[in-house]
């Protein structure tokens, strides 16, 4: 099957994913061989940055989602009734 762009091919996307996961693993492994000069105690935990980055992002997405439940409105909210004019 001919694809318009090599990125349209699911096989290539799968390869990209594998590459991504390999790089993820590499950054964590590299942390093992490098002196990371931890300043705060928590920074010295193995793989701290990886776990911290992942978890805080999950929390931010969920937090945003929760706030969205309260504050989301259709994007016609201000336009509909011509309040702006």
């Amino acid at each position, binding site marked *: 099957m001919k694809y318009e762009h090599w990125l349209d091919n699911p096989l290539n996307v799968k390869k990209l994913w594998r590459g991504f996961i390999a790089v993820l693993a590499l950054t964590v492994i590299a942390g093992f061989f490098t002196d990371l000069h931890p300043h705060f105690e928590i920074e010295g935990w193995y793989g701290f940055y990886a776990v911290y*980055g992942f978890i805080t992002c999950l929390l931010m997405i969920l937090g945003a989602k929760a706030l969205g439940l309260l504050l989301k409105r259709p994007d016609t909210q201000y336009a509909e009734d011509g309040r702006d004019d």
Partner: protein
Amino acid sequence: MTSAILLHPALILIIGALLLPLLRGAARNVAVLAIPLLALAALWLLPEGRPWQVQWLDYSLAPLAVDKLSRLFATIFALMAFGGGLFALRQESRLEIPAAYLYAGSAIGVALAGDLITVFLFWEFMAVGSTLVLWSAGTPLAWAASRRYVGVHLAGGVILFAGIAGHIAQTGDVAFTAMQADSIAHWLILAGFLINAGAPPFSAWLPDAYPEASWSGTVFLSAFTTKTAVYVLLRGFPGAEILIWIGIFMIFYGIVYALLENDMRRILAYSIVNQVGFMVTGIGIGTEMALNGAAAHAFTHIIYKALLLMSAGAVLAATGRRKCSELGGLFHSMPLTTICGTIGALAISSFPLTSGFISKSMVTQAAIDGHLQMVWLFLAAASAGVFLHAGIKFPWFVFFQKDSGLRPADPPASMRWGMILFAFLCIGLGVWPDPLYAMLPYAVNYVPYTAAHVITQLQLLLFSGLAFFVMLDYLKRTPTITLDFDWLYRVAGPALARRLGGRLSQARAGLDGLAREGANRMTAQIHQHRRPDGLLSRSWPTGGMALWVMVLLLANLVFYYLG
């Protein structure tokens, strides 16, 4: 002095802006590119110090005061005017570039002002210039947004003016130097500065107004107002601790609102608040490293944010669409825009080898050096969050995700070169930060590229990327907006005013009726007693008068005996 006036970089841009509408065709295009470069050259020929001082009333003003900090900001403002002008060359509105140059010139004027009165004058000119940029979009939405925008900024200007007047009354000194937030006047000045920085609760004006400008207008708007605010905070309130927490609030406000947003340029507008939050936090930390970091970050941020908005502008100009839910798959036909937008996205996320890496990390380093663990934890989470809300979200939803079927071509040459120039600067500063470090206000004792720093930053960012794709279902775009503080002055305020207005007019009608009735009654009574033959106007017999006099005299006698 005359030569100083002529060579004031701000005046070069402002006078150039006034002359631009007279030119046509190639001459106009040359002038658009030459004016910011002239201003830049004039700026770098200026010696440090105060080459131009004026006595006005009792004050000694210094409309031109140059030191490293002001030169740094004036430089990036002039560069931005050049890049924006190049990108906007094909803009059909003939008002936009002159308005943008007035705006840029005024921003340079603030950066080079040695006294508070000059700061205020250029501050207001900036509000005028930016409003004109908004107007030049020429849409009803832009018009409505510009009215809210100018309202907020004029109110901010009044607050700033009150503060400056109070400061001058207290100290008798107009010089613009570092202050403490220790008096009402100084708090007012701080509040006036912070409103322009997009600090809470007045953050909403920014994502409300900027995305309504034209495809090129938003590029200009993103640069000057907030970064001028960063500049005046750097000079006026370094080390004011409250700024740390204001900055952290702005950082997370920007992330959360950008995550919920659907409009591609509004995502980037929220991320301006987020990025300015990093700078404000740095100013609050207040060490030399932190202030250097805030200044450097303002410099790099102007470039990559302009680049991001240029790529968004190219998409808008080509497709006429601005909502993520209607875009996607544009990498097929807009490869250059995709690459430039992605470079901007990597730079804003502070990936190694981009400009954000060498500037933002100085602020983080300052938090570490100051043993501010809480602040550091917030900043680290925020760095991951930047990648989440701008670094991946913007390019992913605009250029990749589902295929929208749109196949617009890359934009015309002037827009392409604008993007290429800024993409080059993003990478160039990331690879070779020394020229920028040399321009910073304090000596830089910082090495960004250590193995530890690169590895930890990559861990943080890449795992944040993993979180993005794992949670992609939660991030699906919906055609929604998110309510913000501006709801108060867009909906609640007017509704309250209408209702109160209704009540007031009712009350007035009631009072009117009462008053009229009372007046009628009074005239009737007056009429009754004073008409001919009325009680008070009729003629009285003399005998009656004598009788009453006798009664009075008797009463007098009685009281005399009793007393």
